[in-house]
């Protein structure tokens, strides 16, 4: 009687252990990942293009920083400075603060203010980091805030995307500058 009771207890236990072991060894459909927030998505996009520009700024030879492919164009350095300055224009509009270094009016800082490669790299890094901070601080709710931009009101989400796209355009130009100097852009070396 005692032996049969033990068997009655042991059999279901054994079944549970076997089932558990089997479930661990067999592939399962992974649970869907939790939905990411809009702010997370925006931050990823912001950092992705920002880091591509930083990588170029750090990688391109300093003695070629004033190179340009055609006349009437920005030099390599001025492209980077313009992209970062425009990011600051958006960051300042969204945050309502004067964050970042003084680079004069507009979004085309003079090379006199950023003389060395280290100066340019630091400025681009600062712009990307400051923008990331504002996106994180404001979160999803901040993306729906409307702020004046030119003659109309815009959602701040719209302005972040605008800055990301603007940086992408200048990144594309610098890709061509790179290859004109017999160099492969850092991001293309990974492929």
């Amino acid at each position: 009687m005692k032996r049969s009771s033990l068997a009655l207890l042991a059999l279901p236990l054994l079944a549970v252990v076997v089932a558990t072991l089997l479930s661990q060894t067999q592939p399962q459909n992974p649970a869907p990942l939790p939905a990411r927030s809009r702010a997370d998505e925006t931050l990823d996009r912001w950092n992705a293009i920002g880091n591509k520009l930083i990588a170029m700024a750090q990688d391109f030879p300093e003695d070629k920083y004033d190179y340009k492919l055609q006349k009437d164009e920005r030099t390599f350095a001025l492209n980077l400075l313009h992209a970062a300055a425009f990011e600051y224009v958006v960051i300042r509009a969204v945050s309502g603060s004067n964050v970042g270094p003084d680079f004069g009016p507009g979004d085309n800082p003079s090379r006199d203010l950023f003389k060395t490669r280290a100066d340019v790299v630091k400025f681009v890094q600062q712009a990307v980091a400051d923008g990331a901070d504002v996106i994180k601080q404001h979160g999803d709710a901040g993306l729906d805030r409307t702020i004046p931009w030119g003659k109309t009101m815009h959602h701040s989400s719209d302005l972040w995307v605008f800055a990301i796209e603007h940086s992408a355009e200048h990144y594309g130009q610098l890709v061509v500058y790179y290859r004109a100097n017999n160099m492969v852009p850092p991001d293309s070396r990974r492929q």
Partner: protein
Amino acid sequence: MKRIRIWLPAVFILIVALTAVGQSTSAPTLASTVDHEISTIEKEIVDAAEAMPEDRFNFSPECLNLPGNSYKGVRTFAQQVKHVAASNYALWSPLTGDNFPDDFMGGNGPERVRTKADIIKFLKDSFALGHKAAATLTTENMLQPVGSSKSPRLHRATFAVAHAFDHYGQMVEYLRMNGIVPPASRAN
């Protein structure tokens, strides 16, 4: 009767004016915001494509044989345009549920699309799909992954625009290498 005849046009004008005011102050939706972004890059990139003469459409910086360059094997101007269009289809078709044609695989679009007119039509059609995709976006579905990808709908919709801007930047340089000022820069 005479009074009605006087008032009818006034009431009509009032209705039109109120409608116009209502339209100008209506808050932008997620769909309209993304649609606006698509329209912006669509205009810039279509204008740039149209600005390149047909006999220069297969231009690549490689053919300039610039001393000490790394342009070997880079996309031609035509391939840049086709790549943008094919990528637009790849990124936006899961949002609309449209089929992604087999011959669009490979990143540069179908081989059969060769003339300037055909390439620009391919480009314009891809942006038409973009507008359709933007119209599907709502605040409720924007963070949902779509298709087999982990990317949320909003990411796919806007990444296509940023991707197009990257290649637009390259097209700008190709135009300038051919002595052509990009249309978007001409007003400046």
